[in-house]
């Protein structure tokens, strides 16, 4: 399959009063045309920053792209100017956000919010624009799209607003849709509907999707590949099967164990020691996960592990995969 997006060694820093926050520390991944991948990790691990970097939406200052390349359709996006990015945003890459309640402009009719974008990126005019917008509202399963077109966001429920956001993001037929935690703010039943809708539209329109989430439960069955991020780095990536059943990184294991299953107390498995992701002003020298890892070794504290390829698709960055690591290195010294 042809590569649509290729992120190479992306580094994004933020200048704050406390110091330079290294939010993304060398992230690389590829995305093929028509493919859906998921980026998972805890809050603050750099998922959203990576996603917003692809559209160059990081406010600067305080944000800065320190290094790396983002090839989209064969072109590097990072050196592009704001004006050039405006022709890509919305047209070639669509984005939906976490909270549909606040992501739509409250003083503007939903239909007009789609129309203003169509007018910017397409040659459609007058009635044709409106027809296209109504068509999109119908496509995302909003009943009465004609009427909905003339309504304001506050007349929509949360699930309907997220549908409207999806309609907007896909209105110009973008090649890539970035969904930044699209279901986190929704009820569980609505979550399933929205994911189903995205899946359906992906198959119908052939849009590639990057799904950002901290919930591995929503990943299975949606994405073909999963990228696990921790402290601004990719720690493991592979097909959904590899990540779910043959994962090698202790962090991936912890994330999977933390997907709630009724009747089991598994929370402790994720945080054997009281822990949060490390601060990224002074990231740890070795593996960023070692303070929370129940299998950490001496080397983990001192040297950053390299990415190791385990199969065509499966990569992991963990010293446990090294040939010298004792098979029984289960116990913390």
């Amino acid at each position, binding site marked *: 399959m042809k590569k649509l997006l290729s992120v190479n060694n992306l580094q994004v820093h933020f200048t704050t009063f406390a110091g330079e926050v290294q939010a993304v520390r060398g992230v690389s991944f590829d995305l093929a045309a028509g493919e859906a991948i998921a980026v998972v990790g805890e809050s603050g691990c750099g998922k959203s920053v990576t996603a917003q970097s692809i559209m160059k*939406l990081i406010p600067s200052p305080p944000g800065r792209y320190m290094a790396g390349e983002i090839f989209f359709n064969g072109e590097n996006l990072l050196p592009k100017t704001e004006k050039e990015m405006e022709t890509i945003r919305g047209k070639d890459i*669509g984005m939906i956000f976490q909270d549909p309640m*606040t992501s739509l*402009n*409250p*003083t503007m009719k939903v239909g007009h919010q789609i129309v203003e*974008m169509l007018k910017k990126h397409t040659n459609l005019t007058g009635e044709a624009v409106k027809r296209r917008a109504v068509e999109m509202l119908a496509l995302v399963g909003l009943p009465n799209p004609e009427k909905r077109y003339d309504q304001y966001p506050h007349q929509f429920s949360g699930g309907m607003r997220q549908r409207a956001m999806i309609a907007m993001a896909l209105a110009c037929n973008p090649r890539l849709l970035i969904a930044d935690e699209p279901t986190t703010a929704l009820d569980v039943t609505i979550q399933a509907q929205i994911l189903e809708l995205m899946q359906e539209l992906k198959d119908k329109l052939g849009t590639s999707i990057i799904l950002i989430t901290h919930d591995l439960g929503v990943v299975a069955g949606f994405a073909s590949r999963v990228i696990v991020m921790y402290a601004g780095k990719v720690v493991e990536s592979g097909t959904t099967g590899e990540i779910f059943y043959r994962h090698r990184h202790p962090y991936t294991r912890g994330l999977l164990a933390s997907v709630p299953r009724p009747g089991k107390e598994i929370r402790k498995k994720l945080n054997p020691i009281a822990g949060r992701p490390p601060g990224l002003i002074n990231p740890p020298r070795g593996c960023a996960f070692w303070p929370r890892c129940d299998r950490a070794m001496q080397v983990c504290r001192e040297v950053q592990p390299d990415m190791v390829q385990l199969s065509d698709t499966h990569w992991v960055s963990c010293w446990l995969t090294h040939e010298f690591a004792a098979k029984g290195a289960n116990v913390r010294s």
Partner: protein
Amino acid sequence: MAQYLLRRVTTIILALWLIITVTFLIMHSIPGGPFASEKKVPDVIKHNLEERYHLNDPLGKQYIDYLNHLVHLDLGPSFKYEYRTVNDIIKEGFPVSATLGSLAIAFSLVVGLLAGVISALRQNHWQDYLAMVLATLSFSVPSFILSGLLMYFFAYKLQLLPPAMWGTWQQAILPTLALAALPTAFIARLMRSSMLEVLQQDYIKTARAKGLSERVIVLRHGVRNAILPVVTYLGFLVTEVLLGSFVVESIFAIPGLGRWFVISILNRDYTVILGVTVFYSAFLMLMNFLVDLAYVAVDPRIKLVDRKDV
């Protein structure tokens, strides 16, 4: 909606009646009267005058008579200026005050909104600091001092503008500035903080992700939402400009209604005090009502419904 309007009008009439009653009582409890003066007026003449203007009637009867005339839109004669009714005074003075007030409101909206938006967009740059220092200054200097300073510098020192009176456009500049300073500063600060908040909102990020240009994002998505608190302030703005006009018109010797009002109080010109009070109260309530209607037009989430309908 119809029920809401009916309710609003009823409230306005009730409020007006309350204002009339209270003003009437307070006015009559101030010592002195329209015919008390330093020059000794013979008691008989004073008595005849008071008789002619029904000032010797019992207070209750005077009150009823006044209300009766008011219903017929007759605000009575002035006690101080012969051949002039209160209606004449309002007819003469109000257009002047309205012109000055409109100028001040227009100035404060244009300059205040502009300064607020620019400060927000250039937050922590010199434009922001300059605007906010100016705003804090004009916020803290009372209008009677500012009026004096403006006269001193622009009329006396630089001799650029006429110091007082009314009639030419040059004469309108200084009083407009003096009157607009406070609301301009308030609007600038209000708009700045509102704009800063709006620019942080998710829908601005959405607008960016849609590929809209910065200009469209700021104007269509930013200002359009950030302006809501300013619309709420409009009713209060009218009140503030009106109150300010009492001071500014007196200082600049502008023959507006505000100046008449101040003079009438000094003169104990009962009918003028009452008349202007009633007129201004009705005017303010009407303005506030219009602002509420305007709010519906600006914010689609707000609907005018009677509480019982919900």
